């Protein structure tokens, strides 16, 4: 299925939750989904016979623009050999996204990484800890506005 067909199918089922299809972009076309619908949309994408997105290739956190963060899902179907990109855009001051851990188990570590690096918060995640930085690290290092802490456990951090 092409991106437009997938978008129309999703729109007919979820309507409000599916916000936009972007095709005039230099990267693969993507669909913007609202943060409180992503779990249901994911389940539909995985289980609908004509879609069968059985693989979450990648889940990444993005510092989207001045006020927003994004959670980006790259999906692939081994059955139909088609793919789609989904984006969930949330404000920086309340970056709450539904977890898709129960749809694709591989999302568990990916969501932990997106939380660690970007500060995205995933609702209903089974183990919402940092994954790379130490547990007591301050801030989320891949944010554009990130300021590194001066000391960590008595060790000076900047050069």
């Amino acid at each position, binding site marked *: 299925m092409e991106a437009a067909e997938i978008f129309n199918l999703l729109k007919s089922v979820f309507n409000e939750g599916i916000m936009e299809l972007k095709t005039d972009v230099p990267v693969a076309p993507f669909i913007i989904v609202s943060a409180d619908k992503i779990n249901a949309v994911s389940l539909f994408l995985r289980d609908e016979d004509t879609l069968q997105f059985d693989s979450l290739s990648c889940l990444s956190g993005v510092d989207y623009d001045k006020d927003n963060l994004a959670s980006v899902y790259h999906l692939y179907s081994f059955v139909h050999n088609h793919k789609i990109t989904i984006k969930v855009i949330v404000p920086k001051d309340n970056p709450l996204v539904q977890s898709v851990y129960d749809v694709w188990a591989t999302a568990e570590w990916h969501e932990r990484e997106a939380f660690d690096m970007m500060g995205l918060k995933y609702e209903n995640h089974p183990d919402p800890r940092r994954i*790379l*930085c*130490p547990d007591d690290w301050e801030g989320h*290092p891949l944010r554009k506005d*990130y300021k*590194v802490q001066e000391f*960590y*456990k008595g*060790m*000076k*951090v*900047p*050069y």
Partner: protein
Amino acid sequence: MGILNKLDSRIEQFESGNIIITTADKLLNWSRLSSMWQMFFGLACCAIEMMATSASHYDLDRFGIIPRPSPRHCDIILISGTVTLKMATRIKRLYDQMPSPKYILSMGSCSNCGGPYWEHGYHVLKGIDRIIPVDVYVPGCPPRPEALLEGLLKVQEKIRSQSMAKQTNKV
């Protein structure tokens, strides 16, 4: 031969002449620098170079440098690669578990000063000498095995210059 003549009768029975006279310091230092057991761990790409040095071509064994699995067996620790802040706390702990006298060889730019991560590497310790005292720095990114061997020979030189018997040098 004056000293040999004054040795008591028990030693004089070695008539073949295989007697060497030396100082306690020289004997102790010779044995220490000939068996510098190293801590068995590597951190990044420098560790690959360290493994190459340990392998048959460069053959660290001939200097008596053998990797040991416990810090309590070790005399020297090669900091072979990028030290993240997360790892730094562990390295400090391992260092504290080593018995004195102990030596640190900092291998490569990362552990010397942060290397390519000096500016944007929020997670990297900018030099292992911020947490433990370093005896020899080996520059390079990563250093070739020859450079690492040279560094280890420098550690041997340092050991040779120290005194265990008199405890004049703090080791």
